[in-house]
């Protein structure tokens, strides 16, 4: 697939033309003093120099709430497969890695048509990071750059973007851009410089081991005092789950219309830090204590989910949980490093 360059002004015009097309265009925009993904109405609002968004683009592949079925109360149900064609603009590499992991999790074993249809209708234009956020540690997690999952990858090299089209969908979009030039060696070395810088520079919290060591580390850490120490301050609010790009647990509920005859079955984000996440019939809670739930999240990211996706660590170093946690206890790097203080690295 092709690698080319386009000036920032030409790219702005391209985004403008996308906004006028039939697809929904979602991009990163400023929101007060932060950034957020939202529907883009004006190409000038797109901010590819952002540091991090409040919520990850997970909200487009797995919406906070979606309809799975429609039904007659007490009767038959029909599958509801709604998904619009969408262009997602400005996905950072760590968030791209998170989406790649979810693609694997929702398609492996029992194929989830609701997730996969939506995903297949989304075209992703990713971009390398220009500004490091206050809590990013993607360099520690090897997620500061990415080579798969996107349709197009943009790298800001000053007055132009290097545009790498990775799929047929991406190539079609590149053909729509005016003024596209094949990337010169100089452009490619500028791009490499940006990526090399990010590979080490997006590291506000430094993990003291390779991420691939985490499953082994956690094997020996189940009874470590850190769980109780940290969880003592946990409000069980689930903010860490809410902002995490790799959290995909959900709850399923039925909603009945006012006519009491029809309704829909929906799923919505859930969070394993919430008190009743593991409660079963008869009110028995299998993770009643805060430290059990706190540990569960760290194990999900560092051991359980990795075992389902070929060892990939399910923390991508975006740092959102670090910023979102009121009690300042959610930082996975702090927890993993603390465990390492007392556990020999094998």
């Amino acid at each position, binding site marked *: 697939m092709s690698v080319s360059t386009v000036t920032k002004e030409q790219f702005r015009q391209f985004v403008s033309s996308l906004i006028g097309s039939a697809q929904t265009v979602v991009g990163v925009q400023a929101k007060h003093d932060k950034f957020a993904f939202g529907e883009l109405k004006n190409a000038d609002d797109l901010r590819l120099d952002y540091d991090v968004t409040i919520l990850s683009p997970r909200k487009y592949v797995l919406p906070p709430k979606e309809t*799975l*079925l429609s*039904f*007659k*109360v*007490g*009767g*038959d*149900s*029909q*599958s509801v*497969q709604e998904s619009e064609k969408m262009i997602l603009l400005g996905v950072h590499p760590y968030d791209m890695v998170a989406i790649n992991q979810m693609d694997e*999790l*929702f398609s492996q*074993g*029992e*194929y*989830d*048509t*609701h997730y*996969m*249809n939506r995903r297949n209708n989304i075209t992703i234009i990713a971009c390398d990071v220009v500004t490091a956020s206050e809590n990013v540690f993607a360099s520690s997690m090897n997620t500061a750059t990415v080579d798969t999952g996107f349709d197009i990858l943009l790298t800001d090299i000053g007055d132009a973007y290097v545009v790498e089209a990775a799929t047929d969908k991406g190539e079609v979009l590149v053909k729509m851009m005016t003024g596209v030039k094949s990337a010169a060696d100089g452009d490619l070395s500028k791009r490499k410089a940006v990526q090399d810088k990010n590979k080490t520079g997006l590291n506000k919290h430094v993990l003291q081991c390779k991420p691939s060591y985490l499953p082994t580390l956690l094997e020996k850490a*189940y009874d470590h005092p850190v769980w109780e120490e940290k969880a003592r301050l946990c409000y069980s609010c689930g903010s860490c789950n809410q902002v995490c790009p790799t959290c*995909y*647990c*959900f*709850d*399923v*509920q*039925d909603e*009945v219309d006012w006519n009491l005859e029809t*309704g829909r*079955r929906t*799923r919505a984000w*859930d969070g*394993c830090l919430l008190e009743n*996440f*593991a*409660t*079963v*019939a*008869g009110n*028995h809670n*299998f*993770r009643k204590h805060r430290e*059990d739930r706190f540990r*569960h999240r760290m*194990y*999900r990211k560092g*051991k*359980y989910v990795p*075992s389902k996706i070929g060892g990939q660590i399910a923390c991508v170093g975006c740092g959102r949980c670090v910023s979102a946690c009121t009690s300042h206890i959610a930082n996975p790097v702090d927890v993993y490093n603390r465990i390492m203080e007392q556990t020999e690295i094998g």
Partner: protein
Amino acid sequence: MCECCNGKKDIYLPELWTVTKRRMLNGTELFLHLEKDSGDAFEYTPGQFVEVSVAGIGEAPISISSSPTQKGLELVVRKVGNLTKVIHKLEAGDKLGIRGPYGSTYPVAESKGKDLVFICGGIGLVPQRSFIRYALDNRQDYGNITVLLGTKCHDMRLFREETAMWEERKDMLVMETIDEAHECWNGNVGVVTTLIPKIENNLPKAQVLVCGPPIMYKFVLMALAEAEVPEDHIYVNLERRMKCGVGKCGHCQINEHYVCQDGPVFRYSDLANVPEAI
């Protein structure tokens, strides 16, 4: 199935079944016999569960109590929440939505030629009944069959006529106990664990299948350890909140195991070091 899914089925879409028989087994447990409306084959193995739903109320995982050797599907539903309250009002002819079957199975094939010991506490009999009936319908395939039944009180005993018929059979041993003495009860009194020493001779070479309330496992497993039953001969059937049934939603996870996929039936030796399991 719809056009937009590349021919892939919606894994969350239930199919309708009709209630053909219903009766209360005790004050809280409803027995249902169901037939599938489409008439399509429904293949399952003892130990598996289905997701049962009433559209508009919700969905819950329920163990299959029938054996695949019989016609239709049998479930036992305890009245504990909104959904089960509605299910308890169903009459013959009413509809239920069902997805599945899901989850792991009892070791029906690898237990061939071996003795079977079923240890059942309360509604733990419900899923165990699937394998017990299966083994009785394929009697020549299995060695000695022993069933231990423990129930909290006399009034809560399940499948009384059926267990009475089992007791009369010469080709199986059934022992029953209730936790609290009762004037209408002449049998054993005490928790199900107290029966284990009485069948010690049946244990060493047997596949031991355990199902009951969370508290029961701890004591039964201790008693089995004392009787020196190897951990890889013991199978436990665990309950969690299996919301999606297909390994996605995260609710039933015990450490790295998804109960809905890796369970509900686990070989105990695979779980012995999993802290949240028992």
